[in-house]
């Protein structure tokens, strides 16, 4: 290893990651361990229902736990630094270290209380579902060079369509069929104006969101409230238990006892990730997102491909929107997506425009969100207003500490006009 030479970007990132971990471990040891006055035990409850082996409860002295997990985090941080010096990946060490810090935090925050660990993770997954769908829609658009600010609108349109159609037909399947179409319709507006007419995509996306919010609010007031029984009392999907898998302790109830929307989400993430990096379509998509002129010169129809991908994105986001109604509460509520589309966009960027990265980011966000909810129930030393910021703080720490500088696809947001100046 040449110590004088400059570090490559990837090495810089590892360096930052390893040292952030070291810093956070120390902070955890001091904050949760040394300054910890409470020694009341923390109980982790691992069982939800129906697993094979019930690791029922695990009780731990709160201060010992904080010390133990903080020290473990320190070891992982040092290991990560060694890995960095040997020019190796530090993902595993970062993940383990982050987990240890989290456990130390829980020992501190939930002293004398019970943490339903399985429920915590299951809720985290559910809260991330719309974020993951939204982020996948973002990947499809932005990888092919179209900025999609309208994810929020696509989710909301999907939620509305699914709720209304499921209510009218009293059949969740119809809701699931119509929701993607509603999302695609919103995408069509985006595609036509962004690609055909080269309108500024950020402004366009924003306007589309306002349009969808206005439309759904109007219809909600004039149609869904007065005729609630026919228009807004849709059924809810029931969870499908996957035979053997759902019995696995811890993982089973989290991943394999979910509604069809969640299973479709697994499938969509896998398909998008594989297609983007392993198929001809994926190569072409990435090409038009990075260098459309070059792609055009080898015969790829840039705007056609972009158009198609934007419509695909609408289908995906629309299906994600169905989660809010048929997947969760049945009836549609005013602006029920509550800004999830924008968080999905953040997850996409934080995940470096890669499908799996975006999924990780969305999961982190969902986890912090649900952790906040559970800790507010058990009662913590932290005020609730501050706790509500937890997902955002977690995101900021992760972005600054571990992700570092991210680079958008080079042609993201730039309309392509053949022969025009680019």
């Amino acid at each position: 290893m040449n110590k004088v030479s400059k570090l490559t970007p990837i090495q810089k990132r590892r360096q930052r990651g390893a040292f952030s971990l070291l810093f956070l471990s120390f902070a955890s040891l001091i904050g949760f361990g040394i300054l910890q006055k409470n020694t009341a035990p923390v109980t982790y409850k691992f069982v939800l229902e129906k697993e094979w082996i019930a690791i029922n409860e695990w009780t731990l002295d709160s201060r010992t736990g904080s010390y133990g997990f903080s020290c473990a985090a320190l070891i992982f941080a040092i290991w990560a630094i060694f890995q960095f010096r040997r020019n190796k990946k530090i993902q595993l060490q970062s993940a383990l270290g982050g987990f240890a810090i989290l456990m130390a935090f829980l020992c501190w925050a939930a002293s004398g209380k019970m943490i339903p660990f399985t429920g915590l993770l299951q809720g985290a997954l559910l809260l991330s579902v719309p974020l993951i769908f939204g982020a996948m829609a973002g990947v499809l658009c932005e990888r092919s060079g179209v900025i999609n600010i309208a994810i929020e609108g696509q989710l909301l349109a999907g939620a509305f369509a699914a709720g209304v159609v499921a209510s009218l037909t009293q059949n969740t399947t119809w809701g699931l069929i119509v929701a993607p179409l509603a999302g695609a319709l919103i995408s069509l507006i985006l595609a036509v104006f962004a690609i055909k007419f080269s309108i500024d995509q950020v402004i366009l996306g924003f306007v589309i969101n306002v349009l969808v919010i206005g439309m759904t609010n109007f219809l909600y007031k004039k149609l869904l409230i007065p005729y609630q029984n026919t228009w807004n009392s849709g059924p809810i999907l029931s969870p499908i238990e996957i035979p053997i898998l759902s019995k696995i302790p811890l993982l089973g109830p989290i991943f394999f006892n979910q509604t069809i929307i969640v299973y479709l989400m697994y499938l969509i993430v896998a398909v998008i990730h594989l297609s983007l990096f392993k198929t001809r379509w994926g190569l072409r998509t990435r090409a038009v997102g990075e260098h459309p002129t070059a792609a055009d010169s080898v015969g790829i129809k840039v705007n056609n491909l972009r158009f198609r991908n934007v419509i695909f994105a609408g289908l995906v986001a629309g299906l994600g929107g169905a989660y809010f109604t048929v997947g969760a509460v049945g009836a549609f509520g005013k602006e029920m997506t509550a800004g999830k589309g924008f968080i999905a966009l953040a997850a996409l960027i934080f995940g470096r425009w890669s499908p799996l990265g975006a999924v990780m980011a969305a999961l982190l966000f969902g986890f912090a969100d649900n952790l906040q909810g559970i800790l507010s129930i058990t009662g913590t030393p932290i005020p609730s207003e501050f706790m509500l910021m937890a997902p955002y703080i977690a995101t900021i720490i992760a972005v600054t500490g571990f992700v570092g500088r991210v680079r958008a696809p080079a042609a993201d947001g730039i309309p392509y006009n053949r022969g025009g100046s680019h």
Partner: protein
Amino acid sequence: MKKSFVTGSIKAIAAVAALTLLASCSSSSDSAAKVKACLALDTGGVDDKSFNASAWAGAQAAEAAGAEVKYLAATSDADYAPNIKKLVDEGCNIVIGVGFLINGAIVEAAKANPDTKFAIVDQDGKDHGPAGDQYPGAVIDNLQGIEFATNQAAFQAGYLAAGYSKTGKVATYGGLNIPPVSIFMDGFARGVAYYNTVKGKKVVVLGWDVAKKDGTFVGGFSDQAKALQISKNFEQQGADVIFPVAGGLGAATANQSMTGGKSVTIWVDSDGFVQAPQFASVLLTSVVKGVGTSVTAAIQSVIDGTFSATNYLGTLENQGTFLAPYHDLESTVDAALAAEVEQLGADITSGKVAVS
């Protein structure tokens, strides 16, 4: 030729104007005998099935007593002041602002139009100065504040929930940690504590800490998915009675009660049995805020000529707040418990039991 045409048209216009004036005079003299009561609604609109709808229903009830009623709904916060001005200009005898967002505009209008009477729902109706930080505020002679001691009915609900719970855990959560929300949660938690004292039990309240004045909040009033998750978390912690204080988000909790089958829901603001009949099978009761009753009372006071700037306080005594009937779940509530809850209401009114 040209001149005569001009004079001709001027005459015609003058004639039309005079007729219109006459017509408008005669129509206003018709209604002069009646009290004209007008509502300035917030952006929720008259069909929000909640706050605004209740206020309008209360105004319509006053129609029977001989009032002429109308409302103007706002489409955005910028409409409040112009809407109120419109109502004042139309000659409304009393203008009632609905919702605390409209408070500033009502206070300004009341000061500018001393001849019109005003009332404001969910506010104390005092002038707290330009920065809104002068407490207690100055009395405005033609403005009546309408407030609700909803913690009284919530206290009853807490007692009921504690007695109803099989698991010994009950829960509450709010939309935002603001006084109109937390007053319910606080009353509920204190009701549970009172039950524990009386019965020597240890029923736990999740989601609100009386001492810290803090608890579980969604962070808004529109995120159904989050409200659903909070309800699931409560169930996983063992709560079997949940009291959401988050407007329409209560639907998410009632949904979880229906699909999970592990809890019952207590509705808030209005009688859920009437407002959300699809959840009838899981609604234990509702903590009702009598917005309609209060609006009727305010209009009635103008008709009777007894209007004053003294605030209206909705209590159990004047039906300004109350616990709704148990409806479909009546058979599951122990008769002795129901009687105790009833008696508790009387004790709160008589001052025997303090709710805060």
